[in-house]
């Protein structure tokens, strides 16, 4: 009971940015590709994947051989996860549309983003009953932070 209250408190604390950030997971309990992408985008938007994805997340949520590594990141006002239109037994595609503002880094340096709208299509595959992100792979994917999280830091 005490543990549950603690988790609730921490979750409230980490949601100070206004957007709810899901707590770290080390196992893949996501039943649908949509849930997995929602988790991914929320953690990415909070800056965790730019700082460094954990090995547990890499192994359990993706098929990547390495974690993404960038010295800068894209900054977005908001993003929209387009609901999956077609579904196959063990493959899925989910598109995320970002409304970009800048390219930035932790020092506050800003460059204009080349495109205002940035679309990422996630290709997911089922591995032993668990959905995992296959593409883009680690070298292709770019960290995208929510502007609101940057302001709060």
């Amino acid at each position, binding site marked *: 009971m005490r543990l549950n209250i603690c*988790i609730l408190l921490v979750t409230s604390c980490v949601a100070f940015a206004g957007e709810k950030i899901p707590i770290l997971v080390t196992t893949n309990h996501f039943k649908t590709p949509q849930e997995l992408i929602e988790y991914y985008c929320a953690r990415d938007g909070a800056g965790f994947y730019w700082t*460094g994805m954990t090995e547990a997340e890499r192994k359990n949520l993706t098929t990547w051989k390495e974690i993404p590594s*960038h010295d800068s990141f894209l900054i977005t006002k908001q993003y929209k996860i387009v609901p999956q239109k077609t579904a196959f037994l063990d493959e899925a595609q989910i598109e995320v549309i970002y409304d970009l503002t800048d390219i930035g880094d932790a020092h506050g340096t800003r460059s*204009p983003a080349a495109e205002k709208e940035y679309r990422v299509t996630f290709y997911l595959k089922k591995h032993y009953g668990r959905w995992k992100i296959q593409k883009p792979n680690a070298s292709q994917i770019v960290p995208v932070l929510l502007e609101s999280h940057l302001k709060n830091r």
Partner: protein
Amino acid sequence: MRLFNSYYLLTIILLISGWFFVEFNLMSQNCPSGYNARTLTHSIASNLLTNTSDIQRGTRVCVDQKNIDHKKQNGLGQTFLRGWYDGKTVPMPENAFLGETKNELSALQPESEISITNMLPKDNRFFGLKSSTFPKVSAGEFHLPNSCVLNQRDQHEQEETEQAENSLEENFMDQKNTNEDRIFDPETNPQTDPNGLMRATADDSEKAARNIAQQDLFQSILAARKAVYEAIEEDDQNVSEPYRQIPFSALGKFLEQSKAGLNDLAQSLDQTKEGIESSEKFRFASLTQLAQEKTLLSLGAFQKEINQQSYLGATMAFKELFSPPSGNPLSRTPELSEIFNNPSLLKSENLVNRLILFHGLPKQEQDLLLKKLKLVEFLDLVLENGTKKKISLLHNGYFLGGGLTGTDCSLLASSALPVEMRKGKFTSLDFRAMWIYRRKGVLPMPPRYKKDRAELIKKVSKAFVPINVYAGEKPMVGDLLVYRLPWETSGHVFVVKSYDPKFLTAEVIEASQSAGTIRERVFALSTDPIEEKNRIIRAGLFNLRLKPKSNQVCQYHGGTI
């Protein structure tokens, strides 16, 4: 028959008139001297520009006013080239912008000159622009509009002049530096020419000395990196050791202690007004938050195991779970191993695990440990409410202070290698900016720097000599070769091991993402086929040569020169 001849004649007249009309219109574009108004050839079938068009690599094109589009975004003016596609004028793709100069509409003038530095034959699009009016290299994909094209002969002369100007400009910029900065640059000798400017000369013995110096520098960069790696290993061992003897049942207490310590650290960082650089604050706040989450998860896993063992203990002997002999001492159950696993040493996650272990120890043990740890910074923070607070911040190496005085040069260069370090120090975009600043005397814009950040970039740039690979200058051993396109988030920073000017390839070392170690590879400065007669160096390359003696920014310690 006569009617047929008339029609035939009329058609010819119309064709000739049409040709004159087109040519007249083009000529009336008022091209600058040396430029010819010319229609770009294009494939009628596809309406796309082809590789056999008049525009080739190196062609200089003068941009007509009507082909320039100015926009304002985020307070910065941007310039776009208006495209010509399928006979209609359409806006350029967003990534065809030439960038900004100031907070107003771009200064790109109708007579501004752009040259094509590369071409992508696959899409028949041009890639690579260099504008002589901007102090930077910009690039983008676009279809070239009808414009004035510089004659080939004039183009060659213009290139030669520009190279000469760049060389003089660099010498002039060096001359403007203070005496402290004017350390011996192997490329220059104190000989003045009739114009009163320094000329770059070097005889064979100086070249040999320079080569040796660069080799030493290369070795000291590698040694610095190795030293950091070993320091991380040692610190990991030191924080793990107290846990190896702790019984599993007692771990809960340590995890609770860690949770409290990390909460305190997170609050301190959150409320800090002064005392830590903004980038470090951002990164460490994120790392601390991750550490808090991991601690909570491990508390959950610990409790679950205790409950399970208590249940089993009713019928079976209680089994104590021992610490693994190496690796994370908390990885005592499958679930805890999943949480802590074994990330490679240079990864952020390894630092997160070390933070959890450190903050889990009693205060007294922490104080003893702080005397042993190599990678820790003691910071005096000033909080928002005005109170002062001392914290000890564990890190993963290369924690450079804001002032940078007394920084080891090889450490500065070595920190460029791993992406992890670049996040907190200098990104590939910053190295690009340093190069441009050293060449042109102004920082490029974009990016938009904060004032104190801009000053830091300018200061640190003085540790380097900018080498222009596009003007034929060659990378040398120990150089930092930066590859960065400004509209992308990722860049590479290599240390040059050797360079082959014939094939335009460099043997480089760079940080390997997965293994956390460095790897050697061959990096091609040109993507053109080797058999191509005129191979162009790809856009986005900036070669920085660390000055071979101690200077205002950094000093050499032990071994190098």
